[in-house]
């Protein structure tokens, strides 16, 4: 076990695509943590989805050894954090487990909003920041300008910025040396009662849920009886160890160490990121600060395309939940879609990831309904109801008010796009809080915006009004009263519950019109007229009509046409069997999927 002075715990702060994974790979290679023959790009991103999208979804931790020029051998713990706003709580816990952070900035891209918000988190936690200018070998690198941005932001010296290239390996040695020289060793009292911070958990089908932790004070031994302070549950430490490319069991871990603990926990729900591990006998006086119950922000219905697959879907969601405790779900029934689940997600990316993992890893064919955020409804009787689905909304006559979540959004862009962004944010019911020039060429705008407005098409719109020159980050801020209405979509007078949505009153008409128009494009013409209506209560606010199919007959039906036509019609009939029926109208699955892509 290394002495505390020889331990360095750090994380890497970077924007997507700024080269975090590649640089991490180089550190692993240089310290021989990973043999060349086992080297695979983005070694730390274990999910295919992470490798493909180039983002880190789960936190990871890995230990490496480094022989410093002072002749001493140091133990490094690299804690890789998720790289997206949806996971900012997890990021904050990973940061809390470190003394230092490598701030990685792409020399041709400059500083992005994501980087800044995570950097602020790191600074708040008193982390030592090592700025690294990455990809300096690229022809498009703007070394001077981006260096200036970094110096302005950190208030450091130009010489403190290390030039690096994950591709060529430039700067790797300098970074490793700087980790020893600049990042402080862990502090803490080895003799104090055990206090360890859980910063992540993983699920292993043989060993159950495994917690990753950092010991702030005290020490832990194999076989100890431990308590998780926030859940109050007690376990025996069946196995503890350190995280290298594999889990290496240890007898004891001390203050400053990063490791894992296996206690036979069956469900990862019991392991809450941010919780504190202590001893049952001689517990610590208080839990580590900053613990929060992660609450889902966005809700959507997930339904199997084929209703027979309902149980399969449940099974798949349960398995996903073992891995991802932030996913919540409960059964939901829809007239249009049958049996499915109301699922809660941390944000839109999280929703996207769950959807994709269901398809890829579990081979599930699903329909996802219009997502909505979580609202609070207050009845005239003074009850407070949490609304996760449009059907939960109390009748307008019983309703006193509704409150919606507001987020604080940071956008970093070029000054020339300020106007466009302001227009977009106003349209999204946002208010500008501050405008701050990071450099002459980069400006940071802070807005308060209802989360519901971000759920729909905000990212795409932001990208298009700034030609991609904007980065975006947000944090939940507060709940504020909102004039919400429940918008129903009706086909020939029959409501399609799966298409109902909660929208702001000022947006209802435009939204209703959009959905009606989109449905008109997506629904196949049928042998009768189809009226598509958007309604608030009994009031129709938008309408489209699909005329009846007047002619559905093949022109030629001779020799070879007969077989071809029969097969075609049989195929169509099979396809139609899979459609959902609302009243007399058949709706293809694809329509449900596509109607939500409103832009």
């Amino acid at each position, binding site marked *: 076990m290394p002495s505390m002075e020889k331990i360095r715990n750090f994380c890497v702060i970077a924007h997507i695509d700024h080269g975090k994974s590649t640089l991490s790979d180089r550190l692993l290679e240089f310290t021989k943590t990973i043999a060349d023959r086992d080297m695979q790009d983005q070694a730390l991103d274990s999910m295919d989805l992470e490798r493909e999208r180039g983002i880190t979804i789960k936190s990871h931790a890995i230990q490496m050894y480094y022989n410093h020029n002072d002749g001493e051998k140091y133990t490094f713990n690299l804690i890789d954090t998720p790289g997206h706003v949806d996971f900012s709580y997890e990021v904050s816990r990973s940061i809390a487990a470190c003394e230092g952070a490598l701030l990685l900035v792409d020399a041709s891209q400059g500083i992005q909003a994501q980087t800044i918000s995570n950097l602020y988190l790191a600074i708040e936690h008193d982390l030592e920041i090592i700025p690294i200018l990455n990809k300096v070998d690229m022809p498009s690198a703007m070394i001077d300008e981006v260096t200036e941005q970094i110096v302005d932001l950190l208030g450091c010296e130009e010489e403190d910025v290390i030039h690096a290239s994950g591709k060529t390996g430039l700067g790797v040695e300098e970074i490793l040396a700087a980790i020893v020289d600049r990042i402080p060793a862990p502090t803490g009292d080895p003799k104090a009662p055990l206090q360890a911070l859980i910063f992540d958990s993983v699920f292993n089908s043989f060993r159950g849920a495994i917690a990753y932790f950092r010991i702030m004070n005290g020490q832990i031994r194999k076989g100890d009886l431990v308590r998780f302070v926030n859940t109050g549950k007690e376990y025996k430490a069946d196995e503890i160890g350190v995280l290298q490319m594999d889990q290496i069991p240890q007898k004891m871990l001390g203050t400053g160490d990063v490791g894992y603990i296996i206690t036979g926990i069956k469900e990862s729900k019991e392991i809450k990121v941010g919780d504190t591990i202590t001893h049952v006998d001689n517990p610590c006086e208080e839990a580590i600060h900053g613990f929060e119950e992660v609450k889902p922000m966005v809700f959507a219905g997930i339904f199997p395309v084929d209703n027979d697959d309902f149980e399969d879907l449940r099974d798949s969601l349960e398995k996903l939940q073992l891995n991802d405790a932030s996913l919540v779900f409960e059964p939901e029934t829809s007239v249009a879609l049958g049996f499915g689940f109301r699922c809660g997600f941390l944000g839109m990316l999280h929703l996207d990831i769950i959807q994709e993992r269901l398809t890829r890893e579990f081979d599930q064919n699903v329909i996802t309904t219009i997502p909505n955020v979580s609202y609070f409804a207050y009845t005239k009787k003074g009850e407070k109801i949490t609304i996760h689905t449009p059907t939960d909304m109390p009748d307008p006559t019983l309703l006193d008010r509704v409150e919606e979540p507001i987020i604080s959004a940071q956008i970093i862009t070029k000054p020339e796009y300020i106007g466009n962004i302001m227009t977009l944010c106003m349209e999204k019911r946002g208010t500008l809080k501050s405008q701050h020039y990071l450099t002459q060429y980069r400006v940071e705008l802070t807005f308060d915006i209802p989360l519901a407005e971000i759920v729909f098409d905000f990212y795409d719109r932001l990208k298009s009004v700034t030609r991609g020159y904007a980065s975006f980050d947000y944090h939940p801020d507060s709940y504020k009263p909102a004039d919400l209405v429940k918008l129903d979509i009706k086909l020939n007078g029959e409501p399609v519950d799966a298409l109902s949505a909660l929208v702001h009153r000022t947006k209802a008409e435009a939204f209703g019109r959009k959905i009606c128009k989109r449905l008109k494009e997506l629904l196949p013409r049928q042998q009768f007229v189809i009226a598509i209506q958007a309604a608030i209560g009994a009031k129709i606010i938008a309408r489209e009509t699909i005329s009846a199919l007047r*002619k559905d*007959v*093949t*022109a030629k039906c001779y020799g*070879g046409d007969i*077989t071809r036509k*029969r097969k075609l019609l*049989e195929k169509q009939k099979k396809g139609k069997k899979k459609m959902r029926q609302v009243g007399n109208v058949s709706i293809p699955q694809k329509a449900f999927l596509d109607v939500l892509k409103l832009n």
Partner: protein
Amino acid sequence: MRSDYLSGDTLQSIYFGGGTPSLLTEKELSAIFNQIYKTFSIEEDAEVTLEANPDDLTPEKVQILKNSPVNRLSIGIQSFFEEDLKAWNRAHTAAEAIACIQRVQDAGFENLTADLIYGATTTPDEHWVENIQRLIDFKIPHLSCYALTVEERTALGHFVRKGRVEAPKDEHAARQFEILMKMMAEHGYDHYEISNFAKSGYYAVHNSSYWKGSHYLGIGPGAHSFNGDSRSWNIANNPKYIKAIRQGKQSGIQLYETEYLTLEQKYNEYILTGLRTIWGCSLEHIRSIKPEFEAHFIQKVQPFVEKNWMQEQAKTFTLTQKGKLLADYISAELFLL
């Protein structure tokens, strides 16, 4: 090679179609007929049809055909208006269309059929009426009229996809189909198949056999054959087809593929083809495929009878004029999967 496919039946019709058989020279034509007569026994008054484009029917060609066993010509007129012919890339002009009808009638071909196309954006209703009227005036005894359909992988399909040509509207085609049905009825033509109209005694023998489930043998690349239980289709690639014919099994090429029909498929084909014709679908025939199918049919057909899309007479069901516009939809609804 497949002379026994029709198990020695006497042939009632011979049909030269697909592509442009009017390109055949006198020698080629007589070689083919010699081979057919040597191989099969042919009914004395068998219908022998040849498809021709107006621009191919030169006076010489007409004479050659007149001296051959061909006794019925199917002429691809399509339209008598230049706007249409140009839009569809036809090689002939409106004037050639008129001249060639006169020429073949003068040569003594009286059993003629002509193709017309309707529903295109280039064809206003007045032109469509005029197209039909011309053929009536020429006393052509048989007409095949097809709604313009935009098929994938055709020039028209490409243009429509690219937005260079406006896609035909089904209201337009539906209205012109109704005009057609009305004019044909007024002039004594029977609407004996969705796209085919004929004076009595002039129903196409050959094409009717497709719809009545008779057996047939297709010769040439891509040609389909049917013997009651199975359908087969020749390889469509021309060089491969020629190689397979010349070298037989040694070529390593399979000349045709065969598919045996299940009872459900037989029933579906009967519904698909039967409903399109004046002969309709009879409960008796459905029972003969499989007795259980009758109940399914009776149950499914009911709503269509109520909507007046179908009618029943002597346990046989046919489409009404309204129903004819939705034949595919109705067939699919009656299908068994």
